[in-house]
């Protein structure tokens, strides 16, 4: 970029793109320019973040993807912050207390204000929760409030009800909540406290509930409560934010933030050239593993990998009778998962026995992965009674290169034990539709997991993520019981048992849990945390220091 600076200094006598172009083409032949790459980027108050997935829209009630949620967190605050799993910090809620694990009192921070100057009140919180429970409002937050008294198991108001009975505004600053049964406070805090963005009642009540999705408030928000304010979004290109000087937790030290949307390769080049100071990380700003070594060599960057709350799975359709337990065990035993972790992921992934990953509190280290053993797999396959002459189709979603490559390796491994496996590549929506209807034999799929170990939606009949069509009464009971326990220790023990049972039954094959790669400029104080979801908790304190 040095040539660029050089030209920029003399632009007086070089007007017009064409002239520059011609000159540049000429210069292009002249060879290497001087190599000083440092731009005037040090000690700046503008932060550039690279992100691979576009943040669909800015609807605080509904965001299909993680990228949207990430982008919304810059502008909307939740009641609580969660810098580490199940460690909570006050945010809009000054306090969030319960004496009996069923009745909660939330005190709103009196300094909290919307960007139009109006105070954030208890009425806003009550309104938000009721909006989520309103069956006419398109939203993805129902499962975060389903524990409240007065909503059904999907977090929706039952027919006839107009408001949630378990939620009341005691006064302007106080909200009282009541759950259906006593439960682990962490469950409520990490879901309702940390995942529900509080919306301004005075703005949203002017919008027809069914039209919130396409309203200005959901695509170009102006009244928010977080440390940064929305400026503009250029579709699939960048989001611009500016600091909210009146932020109740303190004026943000950065003045501006840009989230730039670019592919993985460009994340690498832009990080290296200092045009972005961090990548969004998580599942939405992953630098290609291939380039990890290159980034680690760069002295201006800190790069590390941490276990993540996500995994890649091979789901065998449990709804088909021929795929019995022995067959599923055979599949898991036949796949060289260590090779996937070591060679394909270059070690930046975890070999996991079940859906639970080391990033999850409830992960039980004593449950070890089923070892790779082709001979054993052949034996299990013979015992399963599966007709190996039958063609098996492995459906692979397009879009994740490493997963597509893993499919090639898995196919080879399964063929090696005598299964006649054919691969079929489908785009993601097609695959999901088929998975939901159970019209498949085997699929590869990735799940992003919650902090709370209640993953029942993946395993119980009717669960929204039960793509494997698992219907095992014992597992269902274990999972539902564990979810409703009130003490953290009790729950942990219950989830330990669940992991043992899952390992034995292999309802789904956990292939590996890819690590998150955290890569950012050394002069950025702040940035992505080991617990990715909690990264933006102290956003207002982040700074870019001069070297």
């Amino acid at each position: 970029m040095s040539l660029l600076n050089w030209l920029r200094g003399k632009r007086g006598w070089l007007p017009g793109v064409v002239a520059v172009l011609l000159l540049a083409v000429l210069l292009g032949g002249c060879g290497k320019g001087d190599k000083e790459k440092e731009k005037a980027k040090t000690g700046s108050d503008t932060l550039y973040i690279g992100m691979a997935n576009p943040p669909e829209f800015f609807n605080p009630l509904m965001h299909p993807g993680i990228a949207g949620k990430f982008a919304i967190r810059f502008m909307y605050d939740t009641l609580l912050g969660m810098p580490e799993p199940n460690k909570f910090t006050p945010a809009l809620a000054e306090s969030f207390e319960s004496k009996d694990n069923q009745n909660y009192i939330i005190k709103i921070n009196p300094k909290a204000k919307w960007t139009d100057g109006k105070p954030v009140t208890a009425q806003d919180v009550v309104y938000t929760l009721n909006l989520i429970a309103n069956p006419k409002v398109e939203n993805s937050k129902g499962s975060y409030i389903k524990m409240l008294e007065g909503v059904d198991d999907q977090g929706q108001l039952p027919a006839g009800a107009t408001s949630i009975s378990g939620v009341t505004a005691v006064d302007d600053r106080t909200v009282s909540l009541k759950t259906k049964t006593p439960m682990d406070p962490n469950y409520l805090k990490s879901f309702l406290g940390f995942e529900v963005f509080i919306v301004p009642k005075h703005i949203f009540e002017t919008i027809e509930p069914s039209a919130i999705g396409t309203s200005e408030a959901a695509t170009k928000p102006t009244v928010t409560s977080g440390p940064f304010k929305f400026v503009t979004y250029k579709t699939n290109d960048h989001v611009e934010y500016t600091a909210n000087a009146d932020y109740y937790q303190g004026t943000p030290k950065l003045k501006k933030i840009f989230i730039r949307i670019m592919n993985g390769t460009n994340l690498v080049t832009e990080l290296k050239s200092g045009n972005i100071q961090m990548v969004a990380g998580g599942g939405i700003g992953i630098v290609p593993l291939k380039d990890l070594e290159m980034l680690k060599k760069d002295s201006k960057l800190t790069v590390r990998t941490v276990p993540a709350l996500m995994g890649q799975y091979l789901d065998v359709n449990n709804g088909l009778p021929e795929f019995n337990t022995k067959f599923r065990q055979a599949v898991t035993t036949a796949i060289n998962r260590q090779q996937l972790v070591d060679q394909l992921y270059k070690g930046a992934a975890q070999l996991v026995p079940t859906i639970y990953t080391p990033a999850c509190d409830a992960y039980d280290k004593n449950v070890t992965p089923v070892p790779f053993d082709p001979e054993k797999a052949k034996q299990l396959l013979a015992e399963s009674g599966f007709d190996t002459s039958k063609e098996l189709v492995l459906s692979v979603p397009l879009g994740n290169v490493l997963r597509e490559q893993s499919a090639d390796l898995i196919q080879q491994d399964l063929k090696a034990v005598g299964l006649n496996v054919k691969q079929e590549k489908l785009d993601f929506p097609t695959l999901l539709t088929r998975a939901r209807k159970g019209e498949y034999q085997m699929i590869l799929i990735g799940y992003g997991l919650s902090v709370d170990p209640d993953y029942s939606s993946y395993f119980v009949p009717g669960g929204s993520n039960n793509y494997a069509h698992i219907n095992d009464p014992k597992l269902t009971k274990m999972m539902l019981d564990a979810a409703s326990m009130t003490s953290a220790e009790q729950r942990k023990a219950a989830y330990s048992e669940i992991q043992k049972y899952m390992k034995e039954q292999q309802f789904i094959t956990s292939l590996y849990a890819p690590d998150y790669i955290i890569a950012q400029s050394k002069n950025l104080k702040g940035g992505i945390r080991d617990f990715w979801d909690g990264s933006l908790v102290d956003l207002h304190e982040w700074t870019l220091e001069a070297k």
Partner: protein
Amino acid sequence: MGAYVVKRLIISVPVLFLISVGAFLLVHLTPGDPADMYISPDMTPAQIELTRMSLGLDKPWVVQYGEWMKNLAGGNLGFSFSNRQPVGEIISQRLNPTLLLMSLSLLVAYLMAIPLGIVSALKKNSLLDRMIIGWTFFNVSFPPFFLGLALIYVLAVQLDLFPTGGMGVLGEENDWISQGMHLVLPVMVMASQFSANMIRYVRASVLDVLEQNYIRTAVSKGLSGVQILLAHVCRNSLIPIVTVIGTDLPKVIGGAVVTEQIFQWPGIGSLTVAAIHSRDYPILMSIVILSAVTVLLANLLVDVLYAVIDPRIRYEK
């Protein structure tokens, strides 16, 4: 002439209609429910149905098409599935970068190609002529993505002369110079493709003209080479130039998919790829219609230009 243009425009209406029906059927009859793309795993079946409703996917396709047409007639291209913003706004954001890239590429290509074509014809069968012709073959045979990658490798990665992609640096003022630097590599790729056709065409037509009797007369009258070139050859080469422009113009909207993808150019081409991946039908439909309109208009424009530069051409009604 006016009547002719009107007639052509009227004919294009049914053509566009058929195109829109075809495109609509194509995207709506393929397996897979696009709504799956826009829901969160946390949503309940009832909520998913709500999303399908707000995207308009709950109705049969004929009704959906009818609504789409109705909106179109009112100048409304609908909302993008993936970000719920008006399609018109998204497309207009993407149109400028594409137009900038393509117009500049065409300009560079023609500025390079026309003199080369003329020289090549004047020095017919010389070494220079053969080199120019050989070069045109290289240009059309070089896969654009391979050329793009090679340029990035040599000029951006190894020599560090140009940025590897994008359209400018955000947040700073993007002066002409920064923009220009970002344009160099993609323009080089596109221009090399465009120039080849023009060179060969100009060469052929100049050769054609040179063999005409009136040129021989001019030579025998003792006019100088430059005079002949300016007075006769250039004028008569205009038609083939217009012809080539006619083949190039329709590509302005959809012609740079691969190049935009490689250089992360925020234009229509990369929007198309993104829309395909996210099954964003309203965007796809609008892009298809937009490019079809471009093709039809470009064809019309070229036909009109023919009549303007060559009075012998007349169009019957």
